[in-house]
């Protein structure tokens, strides 16, 4: 599987565990959420406070219908 988006196109796929390298983690989280998949991702989500805050605000405003969890 060469592209992350190909993973999200798998039939019946409902949620994704994301433990990507840190520099790609947030990108994968956003892509997965926008694709309508539920997301469980590892900490830290980003190394940027502003980016983390922006994503948290977006999620709290339900811009992305799927749920997500950090751990």
């Amino acid at each position: 599987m060469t592209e992350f988006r190909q993973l999200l196109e798998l039939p019946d796929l409902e949620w994704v565990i994301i433990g990507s390298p840190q520099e790609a983690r947030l990108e994968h989280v956003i892509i997965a959420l926008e694709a309508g998949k539920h997301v469980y991702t590892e900490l830290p989500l980003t190394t940027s406070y502003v980016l983390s805050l922006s994503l948290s605000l977006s999620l709290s405003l339900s811009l992305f219908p799927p749920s997500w969890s950090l751990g």
Partner: protein
Amino acid sequence: MEIDTLEDAAWTREHQEIVVRMSAEKAAQTKEQAIQELLQIDVAAIVRASEQACVVPAAPPKAAFAVAGLSTTTKRLTGLLLSNHSADCRLVGVYDNQPTVPEYVRHRYVSLSLSLSLSLSLARSMRNFMLTISTIALVIKFLL
């Protein structure tokens, strides 16, 4: 591609070697027992990860799921899910490609594009205009 057990998962070479080594060291045990022993490493972390996974409200354990990245925590959590819910939980895909663009360039590009995307999302949804402007200003200030 549907994967039901750790044995079928064609894990990374590292994981396979661990399983083989543990099996060799404890030849009396079955491979399943060796896998269970592997999964019991750092039980506290597994429990925390499991609890976090269970928090996901709209994704029941029966759902088909995929894994992006094969960090140790990801492998442990996946193994836990498969071992505890092997009849219900289906691992349907694994993505483990490393970024090819130099990390710094990629990170800055992704940060910029995501910042703009998130700011625009906020701008569309937030009724408090000043708060939106403030958020965008914060992001721009951070990037510059």
